[in-house]
């Protein structure tokens, strides 16, 4: 074979640059929290509060008779119901297509299902899908406003927004600390506007099955942009070291108790048995190390807010006492979901033609 030409070791070479993303194609889409600049996040939070307070009889004229499809490839309680209630609160007509009762069962592709819904008059599609990236594919082929209601292990942007609203609701504006009583809802009619230091000094720990969690990804990509520290906590099988490189402000801490001690907010995650893909996990050992018990909470984080995106598995990632206890804001999160999704659905059908993404 040809003799080697000696070369200066490891010289710096110019190489092709990765392409710049053209997503989202539609200004009304919400695919990833990365699509939202902080002004847009502020706008959505403000609108969530305003819409929540608006008279239902005037609110339902905002999207009167507009058509919105909910396309669900996975089962869902909270997300589907709150999106549906949110869209209906604004006056829209909604229709639900789920994979088990549609032509998807007969082998129709996501592309064809999306084009069919568009032909039926859908002006926006809310998509829950078991494959990461499905929302991007649907937007690419339909060019409709697509609201990502969870794609595989990837993102769940409205969950991160409602988690943010829950956290802000407990943020004492004077001391900039998280308090257990609801601080903001009564004081700020317009809803909080956020900036890059709104959550400065606040540490949020996300615990458990990070690897398979779209909630964790959306939160770790959103909250640090408001100044928060995000600690990821879990065993290596469920939390690879490379997670710390997902973005700025993200840290990995394997020791749950050390993480708890630093946290103002603790977000517990369910073990996603449906995504473990052959991964062997000793549940007794897992509970030993990572279950949020009343004892751990009162000893290490007695003033921290406890969040969980649901569904919760009582007795696994957290005890029933913690789920029902005074530090739990789990049901409050669900309530914020409707408000946030009203704002996101409104933006989906009114963003086109406006300047910017708001």
């Amino acid at each position: 074979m040809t003799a080697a030409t000696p070369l200066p070791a490891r010289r710096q070479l110019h190489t092709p640059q990765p392409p710049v993303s053209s997503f989202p194609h539609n200004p009304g889409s919400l695919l990833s929290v990365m699509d939202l600049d902080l002004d847009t996040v502020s706008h959505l939070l403000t609108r969530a509060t305003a819409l929540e307070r608006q008279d239902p009889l005037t609110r339902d004229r905002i999207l009167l008779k507009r058509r919105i499809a909910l396309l669900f490839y996975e089962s869902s309680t909270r997300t589907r119901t709150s999106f549906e209630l949110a869209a209906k609160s604004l006056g829209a007509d909604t229709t639900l297509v789920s994979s088990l009762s549609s032509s998807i069962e007969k082998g129709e592709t996501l592309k064809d299902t999306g084009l069919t819904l568009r032909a039926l008059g859908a002006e926006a599609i809310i998509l829950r899908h078991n494959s990461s990236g499905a929302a991007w594919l649907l937007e690419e082929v339909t060019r409709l406003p697509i609201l990502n209601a969870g794609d595989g292990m990837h993102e769940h942007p409205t969950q991160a927004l409602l988690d943010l609203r829950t956290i802000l609701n407990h943020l004492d504006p004077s001391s900039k600390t998280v308090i257990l009583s609801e601080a903001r809802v009564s004081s700020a009619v317009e809803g909080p506007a956020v900036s890059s230091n709104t959550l400065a000094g606040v540490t949020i720990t996300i615990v458990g099955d990070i690897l398979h969690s779209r909630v964790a990804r959306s939160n770790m990509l959103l909250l640090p942009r408001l100044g928060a520290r995000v600690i990821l906590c879990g065993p290596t099988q469920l939390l690879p070291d490379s997670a710390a490189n997902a973005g700025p402000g993200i840290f990995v801490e394997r020791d749950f108790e050390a993480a708890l001690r630093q946290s103002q907010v603790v977000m517990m995650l369910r073990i996603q048995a449906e995504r473990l893909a052959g991964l062997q996990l000793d549940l007794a050992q897992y509970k030993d190390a990572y279950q949020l018990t009343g004892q751990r909470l009162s000893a290490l984080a007695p003033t921290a807010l406890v969040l969980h995106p649901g569904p919760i598995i009582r007795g696994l990632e957290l005890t029933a006492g913690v789920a029902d206890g005074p530090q739990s804001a789990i049901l409050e999160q669900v309530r914020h979901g409707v408000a946030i999704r009203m704002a996101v659905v409104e933006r989906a059908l009114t963003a086109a033609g406006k300047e910017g993404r708001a």
Partner: protein
Amino acid sequence: MTALIIRNGHLIDPAAGVDALKDLLLKDGRVAEIVSPGKLKATDGTEVLDATGLTIAPGLIDIHVHLREPGQAYKETIATGTAAAAAGGFTAIAAMPNTNPVNDSPEITRWMHSPDRGACVRVYPIGAATRGSKGEQINDFAALKSAGAVAVTDDGHPILKDSIMRETLAAAARVGLSVIQHAEDTRMTQGASMNAGPIAFKLGLRGMPTEAESSLVERDIRLVTELRDSRVHLHVAHTSTAAAIAAVRKARRNGLRVTCEVAPHHFLLTEEHVGLYNTNAKMNPPLRSAADRDAMIEGILDGVVDAIATDHAPHAVHEKEVEFENAPNGITGLETALGLCLRWLHKEWKLPLGRVLSLLSAQPAALLGLKGRGTLAVGSFADVVVFDPKTEWIYHAKETRSKAHNTPFDGWTMQGKVRWTISEGRIAFSATTPQ
């Protein structure tokens, strides 16, 4: 057969050590004469191609192509695949056996060679190493070889069992065939669809660790070492990791007959090119980290890499227009290889033109023992590519001669435009001929 004269082009034939202006006479499918410009007299009926200002080189050879026939003609046929090859300057391509049925028999190899397939360049079938590529029962290599197979491999179904791989290496060596391994320990890549690392984590995709490739390369090299038979030849397909390149480099220093190829996408692109789930950036092995990509470039520049091979893997449009995890692996490559190699290896990274052409012709020919190919010495096959080395142009996938459009290089700037491709004396591609 009529004769063909190529006049006044700059002949670069690395294997023959020629780098000068020449006239070529091609006759009866062979190179008949090579002389200084102006010395050839055209007789009646001799077609003359004016190559003034153009480069003449041995036709390119791609030792890793998926032609999809028999069985998957909706993706590509031997006719369309070889047409794309000719458009890219290739005059000989080796066809992987992962067809349907798997090419594990002399009958299929002969079927592929039939004139009815409409091949416009030479096709060298590669036989399956084991029955049905199931990794259990070794095929009759002597029969495959006499039918025309130039190597054996189970390509996408790597041979994991030590005993079967050892037996494959030994049996192939006895009949003088190379063993090509797609190095992937599939036990580490279940459900994975891109390189393992921070980007896979961020995109929520399961990752293929680099160790899945390098550990199998290391295992195979250990088996070659243990066999102590100088006829054993292991060829590592589409190398993508720094660790695998390092293992090949070390094996070579130890005097083993271990060779490797690298695909253009692996020396140009990284996992970042997956972007937001671009299925045309999904292949196996996957696009890796920048450090691995740099190791491919280094391996090419320092000579440890023996060949550029495209791993041309056509798929129908509808197959790639699905969720990233559900999309099949692979991209096309025959029409973009030369343009990318000249644009990046030669122009950008200063690899001499002769070395680039050698990686695309003389070296792959030597590697698989393709006699009379990879050089234009008098008496060789009249396999020629004539190209304008300076022209920059934009590749548009929709204009492809392949049936498939699945390329991440759509819209990329290429350098070096193919003017004619001549296969065994016949013009297989001319830039002025409409598709």
